[in-house]
């Protein structure tokens, strides 16, 4: 079976498309997470392949389906948090051969193919549909939701795994070379001028502070809230390995990476995998968990005019994303019980939620909003998952939290100030991401 990357036609990336044709007809019914680790320790049983299998089997069991009922698999083949397997180091064949390998020894170690998953989960005997999504779980969810709605699969697994190798990514290779190509020197992103990964967001945040009269200190309540929520997420990295609250003093005294972005404004890369099981709304009635219905998916595809996105470009794109999200779901901002927009650089969460006009927010309002009650106990919860700041870089805590909150199984993280009925999650970037609207009911 050849697996293709999902075509752009599966995404809803423009305004004016109307209500999603499969609104309320696709549901998530199973969740599976692997344990987390800071880095890979080199063992087969902790490889990204093993973690992914564990997550998939957990999701299948959670949904209460038998593996032979699964007929679809959507996954992200890229699993790196930034580091790729070093070209000068052999792939550990003891790890490769601990599984049923494919022709590529990196499969299951530094990437994932659908073929590798199928080979190593022999209980999946009826998978007829496989597809790849780029980058993040957010994209895989969109593709799987559309696939189930379109009838390409009935019980579809959705998978994202991450590997995190030793070393600091982006510090080797071209960053260490004496000469660089002209296209790198003046390209968007890293460039000759030495911008670290968070610089573009830090620049937008600097302009945000200038434009609206805000400052970095105002992020502290958001950061504290995110870690607190993350520590209530037993699947997360901080809860499992470093159960430490983050005080405003801890946050504000942290070292700068690219001022106004400090260390804590960047999420921590980890090893982890998660999987979901999507099905049709009709089939969901017979499964083990309460269905979480998908009302819409929407995508942003913003392109910066020049070398880095400006605040103004970001604000225009997130506002358009908000409109697309609501239009396709047939809801308004007032219908959102809570939100779980992406935060992998903490400083663009406010762009996402202002774009949503969450709780009536307008551009420039979010940092003031952060000074109010944004807890899971209050009427205006912000990022109830704790996001990537609260649980490590997976880019899927937000989705899991939306499902668990609506299903009433978020445990100590359960929202008490609002009834969790409709939520939105997604990301990653304000200029480019994929977003999903989740609901307790199909209509």
């Amino acid at each position: 079976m050849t697996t293709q990357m999902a075509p752009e036609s599966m995404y809803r990336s423009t305004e004016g498309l109307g209500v999603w044709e499969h609104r309320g007809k696709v549901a998530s019914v199973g969740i599976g997470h692997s344990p987390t680790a800071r880095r890979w320790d080199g063992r087969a049983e902790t490889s990204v392949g093993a973690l992914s299998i564990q997550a998939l089997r957990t999701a299948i069991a959670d949904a209460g389906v038998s593996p032979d009922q699964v007929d679809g698999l959507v996954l992200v083949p890229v699993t790196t948090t930034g580091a790729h397997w070093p070209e000068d180091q052999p792939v550990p064949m003891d790890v490769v051969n601990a599984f049923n390998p494919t022709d590529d020894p990196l499969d299951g170690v530094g990437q994932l193919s659908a073929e590798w998953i199928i080979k190593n989960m022999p209980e999946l005997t009826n998978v007829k549909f496989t597809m790849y999504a780029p980058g993040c779980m957010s994209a895989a969810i969109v593709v799987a939701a559309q696939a189930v709605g379109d009838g390409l699969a009935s019980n579809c697994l959705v998978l994202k795994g991450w590997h995190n190798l030793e070393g600091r990514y982006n510090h080797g290779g071209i960053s260490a070379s004496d000469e660089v190509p002209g296209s790198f020197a003046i390209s968007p992103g890293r460039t000759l001028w030495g911008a670290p990964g968070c610089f573009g967001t830090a620049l937008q945040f600097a302009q945000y502070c200038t434009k609206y009269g805000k400052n970095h200190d105002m992020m502290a309540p958001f950061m504290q809230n995110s870690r607190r929520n993350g520590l209530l997420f037993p699947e997360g990295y901080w809860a499992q390995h470093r159960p430490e609250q983050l005080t405003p003093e801890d946050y504000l005294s942290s070292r700068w990476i690219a001022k106004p972005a400090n260390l804590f404004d960047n999420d921590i890369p980890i090893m982890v995998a998660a999987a979901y099981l999507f099905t049709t709304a009709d089939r969901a009635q017979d499964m083990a968990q309460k269905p979480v219905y998908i009302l819409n998916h929407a995508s942003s595809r913003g392109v910066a005019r020049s070398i880095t996105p400006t605040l103004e470009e970001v604000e225009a794109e997130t506002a358009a994303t908000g409109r697309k999200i609501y239009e396709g779901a047939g809801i308004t901002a007032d219908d959102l019980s809570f939100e779980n927009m992406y935060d992998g650089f903490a400083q663009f969460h406010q762009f996402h939620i202002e774009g949503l006009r969450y709780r009536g927010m307008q551009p420039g309002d979010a940092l003031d909003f952060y000074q109010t009650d944004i807890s899971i106990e209050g009427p205006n919860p912000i990022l109830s998952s704790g996001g990537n700041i609260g649980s490590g870089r997976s880019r899927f805590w937000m989705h899991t939290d939306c499902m668990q909150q609506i299903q009433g199984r978020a445990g100590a993280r359960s929202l008490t100030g609002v009834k969790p009925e409709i939520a939105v999650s997604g990301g990653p970037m304000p200029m480019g991401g994929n977003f999903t609207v989740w609901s307790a009911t199909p209509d």
Partner: protein
Amino acid sequence: MVKQGVVPEDLNRPFFEAANEGRLVIQNCSACDRLHFPPRAACDRCGSGDNMEWKQMSGRGKIYNYGVVYDCPVASLKEDLPFNLAAIMLDEDPGILMYSHLPGVPADEVPVGGAVQVIFEATANGQKVPEWQVVT
């Protein structure tokens, strides 16, 4: 600060050749009169690939905003940490941004919105690139 050397390529060679001559040129679509930076094969507005020309700029701009880099992936810049990294808006079109270390400006003392003038700075292999100085 000595930046990594630059090896021009076909798409950007006119930009770097002009820099060696002390001129700032930016790609412009003559079909719809739209500036582009970084260089592109075709216009992002009208789609034309046959009308991309190089247009000389005044070399004047303003500081959009900036950050101070304390942790840099580029090995050759690490000894200069922390340093300013600003985005410069060209006077001809503030939608066109270029990076600058703002030579001569102490870290974190950047006048946001202030006027700047282009200069040309040699990189490690002698290839010059645009940099920007605050106009006092």
